[in-house]
Each structure stands twice: as structure tokens, then as C-alpha cells.
């Protein structure tokens, strides 16, 4: 393993690859910092660049965006009381009070160190857990894969919004969308309305660009905030002292471990992990009364946990081809685009790529820490970039990104159509992530359902006789039931 890891470092430290890693991380931090833009949009915007790059370099760059955006979200949470990404929501609870006390620099410094701790812990877990999980996944039967795909969609649906039914409807619609075009079993035309163009179906990445990025442009054109109000305050005294770090290190490590665990569970993500980490950190703190009034532990724990989810979310994506959260579902699409098939075989067939990602993840944490400290000084200026210029440029980049998928205007049309659909989904409270996951996992689910039934001679009990498949079914049902139950309880309380 260590030889592979060393080879991974050698790959990442090649000048051009290192430059791309730095570029990805810097873009991630800046995108994460801007409210309304997320890591998934960052990856979408850089998709056209990935075609021209070597596979491992492209993937490490995308990981840089992923990790960078997790930290970046904290900057606006601290300075503006507006989290740049949903994963930074808990950071503002203590970050903003610190900013009000004139300690914005220190708060961002603590967030950077917390993110670094979270990233390193999650990468260590990624390095040690994923090869073992890949070994287990090699023994998966097609029935297990089918139920795993359904598990991924159902768990994302139940965690993505208040209304589980709407989440599940979005997931089912995603599966239906994936069926348009040519069926993957016998190659017959299906739901293409006689159009030859639609024989290729709705390309996953075009759908993704539409639902996650173009829909945001359509939403913001209706009069979001045009200029973000940033109070001009001196951002100084950034890096925490050794004594301060010792004070919040335990909270950061605990937060990181919570993040890794939450990240591994498909369909979850940083937004869930941060509050859990915040609560636990408060319980184990020697000064719980400081939480909510500018506690360093209250910043370090959620920041470590949202960066902890990065390595955690990569584990199911790399080993099983099931994304751990929204950003990894975008990354999964990008993987397919550059010709990498995630799954247990990736560890045997393309170990060089896997270990380059592992090494890259470690390097990214150091870049993020270093750039985070530098960025803190210029962050107030970056936050002033007006939406009225940013959004039109994003729109053009989305169009170009969709066009580059296959040099076809059809892909742009699909992206815009799904931008339109995504806008209405938001308006009526449908989460976008289950839809996209349905589109990605649809072909996997269909092929494995067919194979499982062929092997069992059309015996549907195969899904209940195999322990792994049964476990996924039980977990899916339990997760949905739990979410419905807890929503009902909340409604009753209200």
C-alpha cells in the first residue's frame, strides 16, 4: 500500500499536477465563499477543463474544489452571517459573534485549522477503509448492487428535505429520466418520442449542469441580493496560537470523526454532520457556556466535520460507485466523463489513480490551510463581486460546459431544459439531489435488477434471501420510516 501511496505522491508532485491541485483548491475556496455557489457548481464550471487533463490530475483537482469549498463556506458564514455552503451553517453560530467582537481573522484561522484537521483525519480513514470496503464490494451480487442503488436514492431523498415523499418522487423521476433513450439491456429505443437525437437519452452531466447550476441562475435573476454587504473590518491576527489550537483540538478531532462517519453514509453530507459535531463538541467542552458567543471549539468542530465528510463521501463513491453526497454525485458524473468507472474494480485496475487521489487529498489539506490564511485577508473583497456580473458569466460557462460534453447543442438544450425543471423543483420544495442521483444510478439499478432476476430465474425473493441486499432494504425502509416519524413529531410539537 505504501509503495502505491508514494507513487501517488510522485504523481501529485509533478509540477503541472501540483499546479492543478493548487488551482482546484483555490477555486474551491473562492466558490465556497460566495453565497449561492457551491462545490458542485465549482466542479461543473471546471468540467470542460477535465477532458484535456490526465485522469488522476483531473480527479485530484476536483477533490481540491470539494475540500476547498467546504472551508470556503465558513468565510462568508463568519464575515456575513451567511454561510457560503449549507455545510457552513453551524460555523456562523460562533464565527459571527467572534467577527462582531473584531476577531474575524482569528475565527477564520480557527476554521482553517479545524478544516485541516478534518481533512487529514478523513483522508487517513479514506486510505485505510476504502481498500477494505472495495474487497468486500468485490463479493457483491447483482441483487446487492440493485438494493444498494435504491438505498442510495432513498437515503438521499429522506435526508434532502422536510418532505420525504417529495424527495422520493424526485428520485423516482430521476430513474424515469435515466430510462429515456436506448435501454441498456437489449439496446431498444425507449421513450424517445421518435427523435433520433433523443436516442442518447438525457446525458447525466447535462442534467446535472441544469439542475444544480442553471436553475440557480434562473432563481437569482428574480432578484436575489445584487451586492453582498461586507462590513469593512480589518482581518488581522489570523493564525491561532499553539495554546489556542490545543484548546480546540479535541473538538476538531471528534468533529472530524463524526464527519467521516456521516460522509460514508450515502445521501448525507456536511450539512447534517456539522450540527451533530457542534452538539457533541458542546457536550464534551470544558466551557460549554461559551458556545454561541464566540467559542473556538464551536467553530473548529463543525469545520472539521464538514471537511471530515469529504474523505468519508469519497469512500462509497470510489468503492461502490454510490456518491456520499451532492458534490460526490457531481464528481461521479465527472469520473464517467473522463473514462474512470468507479467501483471495487477501480482498486485493482487503476490503483495508480486511486492512490493519486489519496496522496492528492493529503496535499490538498496543506494547500487549503496555507491558502486559507492568505485568502482571509482578501476575502472581504472577493465577497463584494456583484451577482449581476457573476451569474451571467456562470450561465455562459454552463452552456460551454454542456456543449463540450459531446460537441453537440443538444446537450446545451438538455441542460437548459433541466435548469427550467430545477427552478420549479426548488419552487415547489423538491430537492434536486435525489433526481440527479436517480439519473446516475438508474442504469446501474436496471442492469443489476435484470441480472439478479435472470440468475434467480425471475425469483424476486432473491432480494430477501441475500443478507447484504436484505440489509440495504431494511436500512432504506428504516431510514424513510424514521424521517417520516421525526417529521411528524416535529409537526406535532409545532
Amino acid at each position, binding site marked *: 500500500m505504501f509503495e502505491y501511496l508514494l507513487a501517488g505522491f510522485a504523481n501529485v508532485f509533478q509540477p503541472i499536477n501540483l499546479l492543478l491541485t493548487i488551482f482546484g483548491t483555490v477555486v474551491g475556496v473562492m466558490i465556497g465563499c460566495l453565497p449561492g455557489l457551491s462545490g458542485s457548481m465549482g466542479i461543473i464550471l471546471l468540467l470542460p477543463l477535465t477532458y484535456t487533463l490526465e485522469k488522476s490530475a483531473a480527479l485530484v483537482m476536483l477533490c481540491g474544489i470539494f475540500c476547498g469549498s467546504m472551508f470556503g463556506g465558513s468565510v462568508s458564514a463568519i464575515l456575513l452571517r451567511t454561510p457560503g455552503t449549507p455545510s457552513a451553517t453551524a460555523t456562523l453560530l460562533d464565527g459571527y459573534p467572534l467577527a462582531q467582537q473584531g476577531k474575524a481573522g482569528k475565527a477564520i484561522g480557527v476554521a482553517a485549522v479545524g478544516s485541516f484537521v478534518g481533512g487529514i483525519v478523513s483522508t487517513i480513514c479514506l486510505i485505510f477503509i476504502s481498500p477494505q470496503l472495495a474487497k468486500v464490494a468485490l463479493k457483491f451480487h447483482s441483487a446487492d448492487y440493485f438494493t444498494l442503488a435504491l438505498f442510495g436514492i432513498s437515503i438521499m431523498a429522506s435526508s434532502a428535505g422536510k418532505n420525504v415523499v417529495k424527495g422520493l418522487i424526485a428520485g423516482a423521476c430521476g430513474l*424515469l429520466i435515466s430510462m429515456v433513450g436506448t*435501454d441498456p439491456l437489449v439496446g431498444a429505443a425507449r421513450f424517445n418520442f421518435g427523435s433520433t437525437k433523443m436516442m442518447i437519452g438525457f446525458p447525466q452531466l447535462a442534467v446535472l449542469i441544469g439542475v444544480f447550476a442553471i436553475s440557480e*441562475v434562473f432563481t437569482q435573476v*428574480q432578484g436575489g441580493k*445584487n451586492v453582498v454587504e461586507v462590513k469593512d473590518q480589518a482581518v488581522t491576527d489570523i493564525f491561532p496560537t499553539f495554546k489556542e489550537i490545543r484548546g480546540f483540538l479535541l473538538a476538531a478531532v471528534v468533529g472530524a470523526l463524526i464527519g467521516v462517519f456521516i460522509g460514508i453514509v450515502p445521501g448525507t453530507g456536511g450539512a447534517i454532520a456539522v450540527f451533530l459535531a457542534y452538539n457533541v463538541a458542546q457536550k464534551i467542552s470544558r466551557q460549554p457556556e461559551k458556545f454561541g458567543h464566540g467559542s473556538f471549539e464551536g467553530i473548529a468542530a463543525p469545520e472539521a466535520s464538514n471537511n471530515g465528510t469529504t474523505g468519508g463521501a469519497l469512500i462509497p463513491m470510489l468503492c461502490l460507485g454510490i456518491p456520499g453526497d451532492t458534490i460526490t454525485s457531481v464528481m461521479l458524473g465527472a469520473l464517467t466523463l473522463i473514462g474512470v468507472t468507479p467501483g471495487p474494480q477501480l482498486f485493482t485496475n487503476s490503483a495508480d489513480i486511486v492512490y493519486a487521489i489519496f496522496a492528492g487529498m493529503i496535499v490538498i489539506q496543506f494547500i487549503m490551510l496555507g491558502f486559507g490564511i492568505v485568502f482571509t485577508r482578501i476575502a472581504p473583497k472577493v465577497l463584494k463581486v456583484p451577482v449581476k456580473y457573476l451569474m451571467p458569466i456562470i450561465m455562459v460557462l454552463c452552456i460551454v460546459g454542456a456543449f463540450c460534453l459531446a460537441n453537440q447543442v443538444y446537450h446545451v438544450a438538455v441542460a437548459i431544459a433541466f435548469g427550467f425543471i430545477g427552478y420549479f423543483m426548488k419552487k415547489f420544495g423538491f430537492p434536486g439531489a435525489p433526481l440527479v442521483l436517480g439519473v446516475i444510478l438508474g442504469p446501474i439499478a436496471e442492469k443489476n435488477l*435484470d441480472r439478479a432476476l*435472470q440468475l434467480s430465474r425471475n425469483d424476486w425473493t432473491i432480494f430477501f434471501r441475500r443478507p447484504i441486499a436484505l440489509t440495504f432494504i431494511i436500512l432504506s425502509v428504516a431510514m424513510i420510516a424514521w424521517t417520516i416519524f421525526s417529521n411528524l413529531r416535529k409537526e406535532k410539537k409545532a
Partner: protein
Amino acid sequence: MKKKKPFSELVIGIACMALGVVVFVAAGNLQQVKLGIGPSGFPKFIAVVLALLGLAQTATALIAGVEAPKFDVDKRAASLFAAAVAMSVAYVMLVTQIGFIILTPLLLLGMMYLFGERNIVKMLIIAIVTTACIWLLFTKVFLIFLPVGRIFA
């Protein structure tokens, strides 16, 4: 007292059931196989799931009670959205004819206008510089050819 649900919640539920039925019927015309699911099996399975989810959505809305349908639309917001969609659709329809280089600055200008920018000089500079940068980056660095249009072809 329980809070009533918006009328749209009921419509969504009924629409899902209808979509489920339509997909199930349409899947019946696809090739059937004896072993495995064939091209029709998975759509039928998901259609049933969707119809059941639609039923659950409808039942939830009816149990909670639905408000009377409202048609109070923010006209300004709706027209901005409609204009943005129309510009995007026009772009898709015209880009192969007119080309990226001419159409993209126009789209940028239009979008910036919708986002509230009125300084024409700033708008022109941003539109032209952005288009030029993207064009050069993609065609010269990434070697990906963007639509040139019939005028330049």
C-alpha cells in the same frame, strides 16, 4: 389547528399518479421478455412506485386540507425569469447559425440587463472580454471547437 397545504401539493400528487399511469401504459408497448426484466420491466416498476408516491402525496394533502387555488404571481419576478429562459432557448436555437462569438456577448448583455446592470460601457467590456477569454481558452488551449456559425464557416 392543522395548517392547510397549498393547492399545488394536491396537483403535484395527482400529476405524479397520472405520470405513473402514462409511463406504465407506454412501457407496455415495449419489448417483453420471459427471463429478466427486459426494456419494459424497470419503467413499469418505477411507474408503480411513482404512482404510489403520488397517491401518498395526494392523501397527505387531502388529510391536512388544501387551501383554495391562488394565482397571485409576482409579475416582475415572473417576467425576469421568463426573459432569462427565453434568452437561453433563443441561444440554443441560434448558436449553430450565428455562432458563439456573436451570440455569447449578446446573451451576456441581456443577462446582465436582467440582473439589473444599466452601465452600458461596463456591460460591453464584460461581455466582450468574457467571450474572448472563453473562446481563446477553449479553442487555443483546450482545442475544443465552439460553434462558429454559418457566417464564419
